[in-house]
């Protein structure tokens, strides 16, 4: 008789443990789900404001080349087209990184060439911009590609 009772008690204990385990797992699942939802909402919001940026990022190399063409030609028409593209960027809220003659800032610029040597009293100044950098709402679309000189 007590043998059977022991068996039942044991089973009850095992089931109690299982319930606690399952409750914990369930709560974790719910928590994961809630966190995922929160993140999904954030992602969706940022996607909406940044949806166009992927497209603009892909077009920027073309704008680069058009600017190069504009620099190397007397053709006023080409210069006008290059300006038109830059206007579109402005309209979309994309701003150019001010780089020339400024201190080098790795947050908005990428150095491709260095002139001169580091020194205690020397500062890294941007002396040439090989590719313009673009920013949208504090996010870098493309860092400016620059030549840095230690002065």
């Amino acid at each position: 008789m007590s043998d059977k009772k022991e068996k039942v008690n044991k089973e009850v204990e095992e089931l109690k443990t299982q319930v606690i385990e399952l409750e914990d797992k369930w709560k974790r699942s719910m928590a994961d789900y809630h966190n995922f939802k929160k993140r999904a909402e954030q992602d969706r919001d940022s996607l909406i404001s940044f949806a166009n940026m992927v497209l603009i990022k892909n077009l920027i190399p073309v704008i680069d080349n058009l600017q190069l063409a504009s620099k190397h030609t007397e053709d006023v028409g080409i210069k006008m087209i290059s300006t038109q593209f830059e206007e579109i960027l402005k309209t979309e809220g994309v701003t150019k990184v001010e780089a020339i003659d400024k201190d080098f800032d790795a947050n908005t610029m990428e150095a491709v060439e260095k002139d001169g040597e580091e020194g205690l009293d020397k500062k890294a100044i941007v002396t040439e911009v090989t590719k313009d950098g673009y920013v949208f709402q504090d996010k870098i679309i493309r860092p400016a590609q620059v030549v840095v000189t230690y002065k």
Partner: protein
Amino acid sequence: MSKIIGIDLGTTNSAMAVMEGGEAKIIPNSEGSNTTPSIVNVSDNTVGVVAKRQMVVNPKQTIFSAKRLMGQRIDTEMVTKTKSEVSYNIVKGQNDLAVIEADGKTFTPQEIGAKVLAKLKADAESFLGEKVTEAVITVPAYFDDSQRQATKEAGTIAGLNVQRIINEPTAAALAYGLDKKTQEKIAVYDLGGGTFDVSILEIGDGVFEVLATSGDTFLGGDDFDNKIITWLVEEFKKESGVDLKQDKQALQRLKDAAEKAKIELSSAQQTDVSIPYITADASGPKHLNITLTRAKLEQLVEDLIQKTIKPMEQALSDSKLDKSAITEIILVGGMTRMPKVQEIVKEFFGKEPHKGINPDEVVAIGAAIQGGVLAGDVKDVLLLDVTPLTLGIETLGGVRTPLIDRNTTIPTKASQVFSTAQDSQTSVDIHVLQGEREMSVDNKSLGRFILDGIATAPRGVPQIEVTFDIDANGILSVSASDKATGKEQKITIQGATGLDEKEVEKMREEAEKYSSEDKEKKQKIEAKNNADTVAYQADKMVKDHKDKIAEDKQKELTEDAKNLREKLETASIDELNTMSNALKEKMQNIGADIYKETTKEPGNEPEVEPKKDGQTLDNDEVKEGEVVEEVK
């Protein structure tokens, strides 16, 4: 216990992942990227892409490839070769180990690794919204004890409790679920940014054993890029006579273009490398416009790919196995995206390698899975099934109305309210269907039942709630309940989710094939049903408000309704919809008149519930203009 994240601390790039909802998920860094360059500027402690951007400006303080020095003695070949590739100082430290001298200080490789790990940790905390203190970190299978210890130390310095150090090939195998196999031999081919590793593993009882490793520690994606750049420079010289090798800015543009071309050729057969205004000489500006075919690229990098054959043979011989003994092959590292690489591996082993998981992320994912196992998450792996095919019921016109979409994770529940199709209909026939076709006859019938005892009422009035409930075992219960009487009927269907893969595929393909036909059929029926309802409503309006509608208007409504009914079978979808809408509009105008009539005496306004979401709730609770899905 907090989550244990998995970290792939790579030579060139690092990545991290965590288990969430039973699945490993890559954690993006604060810049939004899934991978972080393993680069540190020790003078301002910037890590990752920001450190990479200023490498050229501060070459002596920007440390990269520190992993090569981890736990290495100063006099080894690896250290010597690394010295020749970096611009920062590597000197002898304690116990003859290699250390880095930069910014007037000395750093052990662990301290550099720790800085990378610290950034990953901070970014993970920001992403997950909770503190991260536990991690699993991966290392190459050939790392010795001293190197493993150093890696663990890097974690500790970064504030992480390194619960385990696991091998990179093992992590990759975990990511592909190969720990479920028994007594099998696995080959892992890892061609990453700067190193090539091949490992042979054996799996048994959930434990992986490394049988052999080999590789080339200085072979990676950058070498492939350089081959393309060299060729472009040669071709351009042939075409224009200008040697771009001395032009730093041109080389930079070539570098970007070469990497882009390499990636494109993994999916396209050829690509145009187009760099306008690459340089200028006496005759004016010059443009580079060269077509690179996949075949040519494969030629250019052939010797690099061939370099991976010998290590594969070496590893096999060291593990005393024949190629045929290898049952699973895994591809790791970005370069394995190249079709030629995949081809070589397949040819060598005579089997198709696993490559479904992003090769840049697979090691971090495996580390996260290990983390999950250690945290007890994955103990009784809660694998949730999905229902492979859409489930629904048959509605007026033989249409299939879906209730649970295919690929819905189960357990799940879905309800929808339906109504009767005829006046005085006292029973509804619930026909449960499974499949992707729009017409019920083209779907699989899972069962049917009848709910009767519905109070006599005009069609569209009764509210029958149909609920589909699939439990964790895939057992489907379908119930129909009359909201008015509370009467309910239900059936239970087994095996609605356990279907043969081939059968499922076949049904999906058929649905694809007939999708536009099906769509049209369904639209036609919907237009018909809608038209029929509108005609019915018009007649009802005349009947109910005989005394409030002018004689001629009554006649109009009755005529229009009759016309509409006559045309049900013959008119096109557009015609039916146009006629229905016209009649509805007439009814609305007449309805407005009736309302005016009724409220001529002030104080007589009947209480109408305020509009909820733009609907008026009238007695029938039938949404204005919407076709109530009806059940026979």
